[in-house]
């Protein structure tokens, strides 16, 4: 039997049910919004930012490596031909990168080389194995002060004298002098002396083991390519420098030297008519101007930048 008391209880049940329903709906909305926020936030843009960063780094590194190789690939090349070679090879490289990114990330990337906006330097090369000079007199390789980007000397240890030859890199009062000779046990002695005026500020001696009678020296970094001997690099003195050689008739090998601007030297442009044992000059790209484009669903950018091929900024 329904009394006034039980009727009040029934209304309380109805009110309680409505309150509970409101609570359930409210809690579900809050939980739902939290879950949605957690799942949506980190998953979309973040990986593409990483991939864009990766592409930016790799495109610079790849372009630098590629242009460096092309600079030193041919001896008899004009600036126009070198520019064409670099444009074609960067295009091929860009296509490979684009295929790789499209298949793995569903992103479009491209790299374009702009020859007109790139800066050229000069390369002095003796491509054939011979004495570095024919007599003991001093010979200027780079008579005017220039930024050195590359100085690789490939020494024929077997035919190099036990008398010292000197290579002198000078920058005003600062200098690095390299004294090279064959040792009594058929190795190559490289002694570097760093001076500030008349004061010697550094000295290092490396005894380099030849590989098949040859030693490949990187004079800019001050090491052999097999890293078995170290000495002072030309980086020990800062700024533009001149390069000269004395007693070059004691040293046999070949060399490749790159600096940022052409100089007036007695050496002519390299061509097929110039003997490989004669030093000659050819153009190199010192700074390459490149556009990089990255295009994905969440992130797009196009960037023009200059790549310093030898890591030296003017």
């Amino acid at each position, binding site marked *: *039997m*329904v009394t006034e008391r*039980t*009727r009040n209880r*029934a*209304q309380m*049940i*109805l009110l*309680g*049910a*409505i309150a*509970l*329903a*409101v609570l*359930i*709906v409210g*809690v*579900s*909305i809050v*939980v*739902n919004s939290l*879950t*949605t926020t*957690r*799942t949506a936030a*980190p*998953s979309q843009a*973040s*990986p593409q930012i*990483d991939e864009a960063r*990766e*592409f930016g*780094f*790799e495109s610079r*590194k*790849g372009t630098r*490596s*590629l242009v460096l*190789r*092309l600079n030193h*690939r041919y001896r008899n090349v004009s600036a126009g031909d070198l520019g064409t070679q670099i444009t*074609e*090879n960067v295009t*091929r*490289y860009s*296509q*490979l*990168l684009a*295929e*790789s*990114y499209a*298949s*793995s*990330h569903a992103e479009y990337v491209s790299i374009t080389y702009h020859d007109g906006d790139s800066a050229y330097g000069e390369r002095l090369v003796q491509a054939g194995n011979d004495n570095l000079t024919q007599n003991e007199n001093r010979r200027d390789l780079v008579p005017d002060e220039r930024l050195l980007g590359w100085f690789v000397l490939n020494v024929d240890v077997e035919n190099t004298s036990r008398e010292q030859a000197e290579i002198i890199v000078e920058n005003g009062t600062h200098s690095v002098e390299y004294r090279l000779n064959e040792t009594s046990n058929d190795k190559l002695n490289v002694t570097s002396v760093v001076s500030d005026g008349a004061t010697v500020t550094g000295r290092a001696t490396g005894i380099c083991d030849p590989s098949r009678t040859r030693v490949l020296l990187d004079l800019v970094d001050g090491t052999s390519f097999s890293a078995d001997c170290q000495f002072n690099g030309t980086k020990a003195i800062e700024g533009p420098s001149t390069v000269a050689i004395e007693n070059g008739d004691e040293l046999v090998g070949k060399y490749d030297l790159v600096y940022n601007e052409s100089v007036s030297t007695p050496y002519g442009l390299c061509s097929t008519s110039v003997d490989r044992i004669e030093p000659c000059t050819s153009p190199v790209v010192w700074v390459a101007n490149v556009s990089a484009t990255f295009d994905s669903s969440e992130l797009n950018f196009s960037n023009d930048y200059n790549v310093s091929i030898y890591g030296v900024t003017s």
Partner: protein
Amino acid sequence: MREDSRGQAFTLEGLVSALVLLGALLFAVQSVVVTPGSGGDLDTSTQSDLRQQASDILLTTARAEDNDLSTLVRNWSQAKQTFDGAINRNIGYGPRTPPGGFGAMLNQTFTQRGYLYNVYVVYRPANVSDGTGRVPMVDRGNPSEQAVTASYTVTLYDNQTLTARNVSQNVELWQYDTNATNNVDGFYPVPNAVDGPVYNVVEVRVVVW
């Protein structure tokens, strides 16, 4: 008669209460977001973390002084025709840890926390029609549905050499053959994809689950 009406009102109020409660419950159940990880092992947040960690390992290795990604990709043994120190060409290092900091980071970040991973070297073919090729560096089985992937692109050049122990440093990449049975020129599975100094653009892909 009056008491009957009150009884019917009481019944109706009870029914309305039940319907209100059921409606609220139905709304709550229907509105719950069903995430991909709700029914599996990895939730979305964990997947995102694993992808980021794999990506960081690749980035760190790519920029390392020693044993960078390029060195690891060229760490190919001529004697075993697989990566140097690996088990075989089908599973690469398999249960073993890859060399260098790369292997140490993968081991510390994933293996020690109970995750599995595969590492593949994906290369461009010499002929575009051949499609991409893949060399397993580490194969630990089939990834689960919740597996995540991170990758890094590495450029190889013609005049680079293999980096495995006991491999001649006078033989450049372009001189190798992609035919495993050619014992004359040596074997390296990644082909020369284009003319010019670039040899191939390979992708080092890490799959974690």
